[in-house]
């Protein structure tokens, strides 16, 4: 056992030592995926860095710095931060909801801090994973399934999910619930809870339908039959499928996509960017990107498995699953497998907030990796 390993076990590495511990392979992989995003944004702009590729590159670099910075911070500090971060995120969500109602705006999803726009729902994705990992860290497998102990994490999931849902932002609400449930599952929730819960959810679908907004119902109906209204709401789905499908095996060639360049594709630089990859690089390119995503997820799982703390494991897995849910929902949406929800493709879609959330998530994942040898007792509340 080397000196560094010994120091690592005790969480006493210096910053340069920690930098050596960073999983640079994962960083390169993330950079590659972001690079694909830059290529596509350049192509969609008709072969130009403006208006999308250049700002995106800039944001990615900022995100990279944040990632490393977060990775340097001891996970026990993140453990300390978990509940306050959750509380702040929840307060901000309440604030947006109230301001949204008072302001009379339709979909209120962000708060403005001067020039900075903050989306509390994005902040909540990270905070929820942190807080749940923190809470579940203190429970044994048996504890997880005790009703009273289970009630707390369920409320922790339900409260923000409800607030996001009424914003209304169905996609993010679904991701919050999925993240939360996945963490409960990983913490060892009994099958006696899981099986009835799944049955209950399936039974509740018709009830949920009644509570949906008109635009959400329309999206679902349109999804079920896009051809019915292929110039109206079905346009997005139809055109997305045409865009992907017309790429064929090898694609139309970089910068030669017609659907995106001629504006047949809606939201081409954000939610539907994956279709352009399908169009210009074909089946080969689309699957290659999925493989890159798969590799990142693989790294995430490996990091989770190699962490010596339950908090680290849950945090790493939570962040990885959050990333996975983004990809799954976005890809399934643009391929016409699920209704249209406003979820971007992580690292690829144009947009600052999503980029920041994803990079912060990877920062936490990296922190788990750097501090994988740190052991945290079940009843410990962190570093302090």
């Amino acid at each position, binding site marked *: 056992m080397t000196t560094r390993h010994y120091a690592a076990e005790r969480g006493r590495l210096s910053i340069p030592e920690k930098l050596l511990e960073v999983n640079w392979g994962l960083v390169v992989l993330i950079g590659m995926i972001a690079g694909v995003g830059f290529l596509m944004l350049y192509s969609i702009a008709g072969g130009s860095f403006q208006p999308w590729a250049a700002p995106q590159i800039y944001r990615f670099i900022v995100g990279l710095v944040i990632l490393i910075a977060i990775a340097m911070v001891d996970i026990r500090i993140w453990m300390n931060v978990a509940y306050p971060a959750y509380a702040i995120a929840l307060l901000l969500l309440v604030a947006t909801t109230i301001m949204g109602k008072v302001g009379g705006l339709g979909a209120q999803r962000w708060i403005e801090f001067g020039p900075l726009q903050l989306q509390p729902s994005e902040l909540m994705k990270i905070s929820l994973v942190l807080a749940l990992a923190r809470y579940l860290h203190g429970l044994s497998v048996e504890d997880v399934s005790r009703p009273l102990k289970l009630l707390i994490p369920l409320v922790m999931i339900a409260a923000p999910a409800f607030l996001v849902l009424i914003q209304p932002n169905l996609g993010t609400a679904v991701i919050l619930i999925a993240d939360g449930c996945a963490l409960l599952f990983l913490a*060892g929730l009994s099958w006696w809870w899981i099986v009835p819960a799944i049955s209950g959810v399936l039974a509740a679908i018709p009830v949920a339908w009644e509570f949906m907004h008109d635009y959400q119902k329309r999206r679902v109906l349109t999804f079920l039959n896009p051809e019915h209204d292929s110039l109206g709401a079905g346009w997005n789905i139809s055109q997305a499928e045409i865009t992907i*499908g017309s790429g064929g095996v090898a694609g139309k060639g970089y910068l030669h996509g017609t659907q995106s360049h001629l*504006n*047949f594709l809606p939201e081409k630089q954000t939610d539907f960017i994956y279709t352009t990859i399908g169009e210009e690089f074909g*089946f080969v390119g689309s699957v290659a990107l999925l493989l890159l995503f798969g590799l990142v997820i693989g790294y995430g*799982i490996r990091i989770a498995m190699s962490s010596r703390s339950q908090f680290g494991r849950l945090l790493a*897995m939570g962040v990885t699953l959050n990333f*996975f849910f983004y990809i799954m929902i976005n890809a399934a949406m643009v391929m016409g497998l699920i209704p249209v929800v406003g979820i971007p493709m992580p690292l690829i879609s144009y947009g600052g907030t999503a980029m920041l959330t994803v990079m912060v998530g990877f920062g936490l994942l990296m922190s788990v990796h750097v501090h994988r040898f740190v052991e945290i007792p079940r009843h410990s509340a962190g570093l302090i």
Partner: protein
Amino acid sequence: MPLFDRKDKSRYSTFSRRSLLVSGAMTAVFTGLTARLYQLQILQGDQFMTRAEDNRVNQRLVAPLRGRILDRFGVELATNRRNYRVLLIPEQLADSVDAALDAISRIIAISPSQRDRVHRDIGQNKRFVPVTVAENLTWEEFARINLHLPYLSGVQPDVGETRFYPFNDELSHILGYVAAVSADDKKEHEDPLLDLPGFRIGKRGIEKRFDPEIRGTAGVSRVEVNAYGRVIRELGREPGMPGSDVYLTIDRQVQQKLAELMGNESAAAVVMDVHNGDIIALASTPGFDPNLFNVGIKTSEWQALTTNDHNPLLNKVMSGVYPPGSTYKCAMALAAVDAGIATPGFSVFCDGATTLGNNVFHCWKRGGHGHVDLKRGIQQSCDVFFYEVARRLGIDRIEEASHRLGLGRLTGIELPGERAGTIPGRAWKLANFGVPWQLGETLVTGIGQGYVLTTPIQLATMAARIASGNEVYPRIARVVGRDAQTRPEVKALQFSDKAILAVHEGMSAVTNEPGGTAYPWRIIEPGFEMAGKTGTAQVRRITREERASGVRKNESLPWRLRDHALFVAFAPVLEPKYACAVVIEHGAVGPHPQVQIARDILAFTQKRDPARLPNAYPVKTAENIPGFKVTP
């Protein structure tokens, strides 16, 4: 340093096991996504490729050039003219639309209604779609716009094609007009061209009858468009086929003369070749200016046309039906000789009226004509003579003879809207009135009154048939595209030569012998003389009281109640070449104006005939061009 307890160990193994499950689930999801990609891109790739191409490529129709309409000598009667237009492209404007229109209006006139239309068009279209500000500009106006172009951003001068009728209302009823496509037109024809904005379709006359030929076939331009329909570039172009030219049998000079002679009367006149049925001139007055319909007729102009009691929109030559009056006596005379009734010695005594049962049938001449034979009967148009002829012939033979002369039947002239008129008979009466035919009606029919209704084109056809002795049919289209129009085979008329000659003699006496009803208005020039038959068709019933106190003169009646004036003629008397029919509605006033029109137009037509004046039209051949040598 606290140690791990057993519980911690157990939750780690649980975590690992469940992570494995989650990994499996994620792998399954990725496999599912890949399968979907395989389905979309490999299995259905071709289909989506086609749909992407459909999205991208638009087929734009290119309107073909409309075929011209020309007279028999190649004079353009309907053609296409450069249409100088000014367009506005809203997205290229430097300033507001109004500012641009103000700038244009300092150069050319723009009415408030034009302004409104421009605003409306801009509102209805995407901002890159050009909107027409003004069209049919003169070359000078167009040049001025071009001169100021550097200061007019978003303004685009443009040259299109528009239909143009150089002779305005002179040929309106022959040519018809073109106008915007209506919903009914689209139902009737299935040509994608009809959906083209601004496309014009033939609505009347030759323009309508030969529209499919004149229209041509559309060209196709394949263009790449974006999702908003903006054209990015042209990918390829297939030129269409320009429409066929139509050559008419009309002689524009004769047509002009005829229109001039008819002036503002509500009248119809037609001149035709007696041998082949070629229509030399055909006019219905008043006419209209077909150019008005092309650009969109104003409401006030349209109302002026529809409310005019002279019916400018009706082609009276073939859609107007009139009692033939005494012109019908030609047919009666022909039938009478043919049936052996009017033999050389046959005569009738006219004392001004004849009686049948309780009814008295008057002759137009009070006091009567005395002894009248066939020639005098025609020459002086004696009614009593023809009452007797009709009585002897019977309605069946009258009906049959009329049909042989082309009366009461469509002539088949290539103009839409022809009417058949009426030649009454026993079956017709029973079918339309449910009561049997009366002998008195035969007598009235004998002088071309009662139920008999004919069109001027039928009367001209009758005159042509009598003149030539052949069963000719009027034709107005000579060549369409490269195809000479086929004509019905000319058969001999089914009347004996003896009968035809007797009627010629009678009709010649009308104009050329003193005492004839048209003698004062004959053609004097030797070799150009015409033969004819006058007619006056009553449009009101003359009561017994009026007859007793003296029939009112037409001049004293309101226009609507005056008699129609008719005349049929052919010329020259020997070896006839041209036939003519003239009808002036409510025109039986003064010195037979209809006869004067026929006289002047027949004289003019004959003088135009190259065959009549060989020296006036030197025919150039290889031999008589100086300096030209025929190489062996």
